[in-house]
């Protein structure tokens, strides 16, 4: 009785292809609702400190200065008016003006985004280049010392404080060996060290997922069939097993990129990369709240878009999800 009471009707009774569409329509609605919720939270976040006009005007401001700031920035209006003003303008791509940089926030973020994206993509590529072979190797040699070694690498990656690893690389690769520049954004070499550090945060998850997917694929009937046909080991591994194991990995990679973009703030600070994270960091220190709330919003929207992309890629890569 208890079981029947809570059982849910299956969500999709129609054929799969329209069900896919319906699924993405639902996902889109959820994404918009998430963005709206994040807007409320980001707005509330910047109002936490109480009177923004006082913090913007600075410690030496008189009461009259504070009032001028309050008027100039529209902080004298009711909170609800300020909020809907922000939402209304954000919907048209206008994220307000920065107090400190005296520029449009949207322009500031657009200026800094390439650095953060380059860093994120570098990190993702390095992470995939390391974790795919490691995961495959561990799966092929399941339960050997090699497998345990790979799992140890994943554990080490999980425990490594990223900012500390960054400093260690600066000392070793940068100063002692002189292979790579220590900080800044001049050339592609500047992205190698931060990319390695950022990759460390994604390597454990990607390696474990590749390993688990490959073990499952290698134990399946179609691999046995492929073996029976006398296919070469490489063909079985790369063509048959990896293609199936890669489906969840590709999807998680997109989500990991979202986490990396959000988490790159620490690494951008360590390596003095002037990306969006660095911008947010500067703005927090200067009470430049339009920038802070906009960066939170933009990063959240990018994450939501990437998770949707991950679902879409799952559907494209896995014919079973695509329908008849």
């Amino acid at each position: 009785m208890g079981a029947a009471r809570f059982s849910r009707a299956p969500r999709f009774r129609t054929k799969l292809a329209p069900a896919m569409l319906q699924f993405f329509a639902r996902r889109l609605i959820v994404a918009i609702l998430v963005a709206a919720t994040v807007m409320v939270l980001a707005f509330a976040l910047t109002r936490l400190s109480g009177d923004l006009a006082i913090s913007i005007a600075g410690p030496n401001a008189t009461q009259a200065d504070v009032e001028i700031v309050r008027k100039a920035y529209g902080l004298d209006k009711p909170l609800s008016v300020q909020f809907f003003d922000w939402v209304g303008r954000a919907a048209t791509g206008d994220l307000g003006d920065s107090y400190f940089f005296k520029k449009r926030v949207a322009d500031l973020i657009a200026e800094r985004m390439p650095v953060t994206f380059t860093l994120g993509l570098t990190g993702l590529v390095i992470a995939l280049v390391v974790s795919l072979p490691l995961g495959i190797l561990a799966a092929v040699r399941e339960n050997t010392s090699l497998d345990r070694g790979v799992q140890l690498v994943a554990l080490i990656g999980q425990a490594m404080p990223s900012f500390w690893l960054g400093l260690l690389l600066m000392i070793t690769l940068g100063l002692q060996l002189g292979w790579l520049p220590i900080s800044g954004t001049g050339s592609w070499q500047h992205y190698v060290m931060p990319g390695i550090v950022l990759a460390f945060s994604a390597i454990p998850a990607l390696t474990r997922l590749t390993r688990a997917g490959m073990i499952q694929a290698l134990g399946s009937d179609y691999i046995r069939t492929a073996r029976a046909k006398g296919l070469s080991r490489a063909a079985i591994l790369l063509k048959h097993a990896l293609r199936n194991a890669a489906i969840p990995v590709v999807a998680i990679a997109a989500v990991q990129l979202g986490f990396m973009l959000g988490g790159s703030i620490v690494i951008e600070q360590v390596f003095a990369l002037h990306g969006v994270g660095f911008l947010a960091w500067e703005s927090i220190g200067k009470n430049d709240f339009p920038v802070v709330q906009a960066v939170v919003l933009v990063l959240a929207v990018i994450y939501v878009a990437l998770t949707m992309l991950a679902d879409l890629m799952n559907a494209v890569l896995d014919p079973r999800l695509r329908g008849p």
Partner: protein
Amino acid sequence: MSTVSVITGPRRGWRSAGTWIGAAIVGVATVCAIFAPLIVPHDPFTQDLSKRLLPPFWMAGTNPDHLLGTDQLGRDYLSRLIWGCRISMLIGITVTIVSGLIGITLGVLGGFLGGRVDDAVLFAITTRLSIPVVLVALAVVGLLGSSMALLVLTLGLLLWDRFAVVARSTTMQVRNLDFVAAAWCAGCSRARILLGEVLPNIASHLVVVATLEIALAILLEAALSFLGLGVPPPLPSWGLMIAEAKDYMFFSPWVIVIPGVALFVLVLGINLLGDGLRDLFGARSDP
């Protein structure tokens, strides 16, 4: 192939060396954390500018009074390291209590009640995952000023997602089992079933999540303190120690190596113990 792996099998649970290493690290850290005021060789806050940046015991010019040397203000590094362990453990555990309360409540309610409630819980999890944790935590501390209580509360409010995901999925499995149906038939109330039947049966999974969350909270606290928006100075957080020593790292790398290794080893130990517990309980920690 699979039969062979069952026989030779990987070493699991307490038979795995990793679990013991993890337990030993966590044990030592717990002792350091609890008895820090008794075991520190020097006061971790006392400055002595005549003894600035003394090297640790394996380097030339060391002072036997300061085994791990001193920092840029002449404070004993070993004492600060032990005190920092106390702060890391304190923050790791309190953050996990806050996030666990939020996440488990949401997850169990969503998984048990289903329907609209579950939709709302799923939405909350999706929203939470889309929020960049480090950035928001930095912004909160930056706007409100750094204090331990604020840091714990902020991280607790940000890190409940994995608790919610695991509590939700395990509750969904448990609620359809026979003993829950039996409790319904015996006329137990919903609250009684939740607290008496469901919660004890998902507890092992939640313990595993808790270990991973403690490790994550410790790493995040260190990162925030490193950026100057975590634990307020002069408290010796490991992240803060690395930040303060950063200017000297090119000349004497040990100043950042020592607190970093401590941080790395503690987090590794907690994760090893968590993995061991997971194998022991046969629990899952991933959604």
